[in-house]
């Protein structure tokens, strides 16, 4: 039910994630941040089985931190995505009764993204079957089903941060209009050469006088 969105620009990547934490039919929390800062220029947003996503995100980000401590430099963007994918693939094929099997089965549709000084922006789409693909725009969850057409229509290679934020607004308007699940708030974060920044969250309230057709 949860939704993650991501857009890559020439020199930034922007992520949006809803803030609803639900267990069965009950909404447990309405301000859960699902966009995690894994290092100075790496954001990971995860959705899926809530315990697993938390455990897995933490495992990945701590290992990325460990890599930096050991080597004195950060894991490159592709390497970070590959490391994540490799872990998911290993879990998927493990028969260990504990973490392995279970972590993989339910976890983590995930978007994994970072900005790197040399390689520019990278947005990796990784899912629980250990697919990993570098994309220009991506989404996870039911909400993302409404967004691919919006991305296709409005995304272009020289997109600016303001335009990307506006695309998210259009996506969220559509999600709140058409998706049967109530996803009120979305956190938005951006990573560019200056590092990670949180932008103004997009909520039903902030969209009241937004004209999506403009």
């Amino acid at each position, binding site marked *: 039910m949860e939704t993650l969105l991501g857009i890559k620009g020439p020199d930034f990547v922007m992520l949006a994630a809803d803030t609803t*934490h639900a*267990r069965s039919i*009950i909404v447990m929390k309405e301000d859960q941040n699902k966009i995690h800062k894994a290092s100075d220029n790496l954001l990971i947003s995860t959705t899926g*089985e*809530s315990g697993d996503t938390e455990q897995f995100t933490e495992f990945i980000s701590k290992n990325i931190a460990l890599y930096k401590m050991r080597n004195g430099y950060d894991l490159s963007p592709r390497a970070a995505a590959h490391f994540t994918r490799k872990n998911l693939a290993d879990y998927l094929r493990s028969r260990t*009764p*504990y*973490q392995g099997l279970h972590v993989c089965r339910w976890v983590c549709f995930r978007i994994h993204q970072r900005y790197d000084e040399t390689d520019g922006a990278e947005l990796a789409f990784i899912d629980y079957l250990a697919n990993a693909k570098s994309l220009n725009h991506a989404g996870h969850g039911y909400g993302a089903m409404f967004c691919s057409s919006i991305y296709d229509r409005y995304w272009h290679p020289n997109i600016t941060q303001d335009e990307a934020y506006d695309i998210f607004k259009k996506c969220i308007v559509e999600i709140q209009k058409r998706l049967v699940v109530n996803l009120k708030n979305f956190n938005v974060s951006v990573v560019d050469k200056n590092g990670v920044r949180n932008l103004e969250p997009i909520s039903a309230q902030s969209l009241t006088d937004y004209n999506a057709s403009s």
Partner: protein
Amino acid sequence: MSLEELCGLKAFLKTTNWSNSMRQISEHDFQEITSNFNNPYRLMAPVPGTPDLTNASLKIDHGTTALGFVYQGGIVLCADSRSSSGINVTTQTMDKIVPVSSQIVGTLAGGSADCTYWYRVLARESRLHELRYKRPMSVDAAAKMICHVSEMHRGTGLNMGMLLAGYSPKGPSLVYVDSDGVNISGKRFSVGSGASNALGILDPMYRFDLTDEEAFDLALQSLCQATLCDASTGGMVVLHHVGPAAHRIVRKVDCMELHKKYSLDARNFS
């Protein structure tokens, strides 16, 4: 073994004869089985592979309503005391709000055995933490511990949900953890089979600036509604208050008393 049969364990326990294998048990095996005496995190390894507990006719105790919320005067925790096993009420006097340390209080929901065991491990660990580091264990640390336990025992049928409440120098914190490894902190939670009923009352009437009496009343009213609507919630309703310095039991009322009080209130209101 009769107990084994009674529990329907044979279906998924592939050992041919338990009593035979008991005879062959070595010193090493014995130590393995009782390893949790030395290290509470280690339990005897479950059946190889993932045991499918859906086929076992185990009736695990469950059915609870526990709620907790943060307000200006601290944290309020409220829970019933009924423990049921299938359609039977096992006891009406179970303590579901338990002190983990001098700083932390927890509520237990889910399988009673799981909850009781891991609560005791948690209490032990937090005491050891206090002795080792000369400062109390934080609520987040306690929650993380339960979270790791849940992760270690994924798929083995572990079933529990806990609310942990306590004060740290940063202020009050209330965390929800369960056997799926979920760990979320927030201002207002309700756990158990009657959670949705309790939330129906709690949500619209909750404000952060409630006075102590208003907060206690709101908690009791929410739980009273849960005892009315949920069959496995009932017995004594226990109300805990967690303040900056200490936690205490505020009230322990039979839910019948609450019914009398609040259903009358409701009638006057309409």
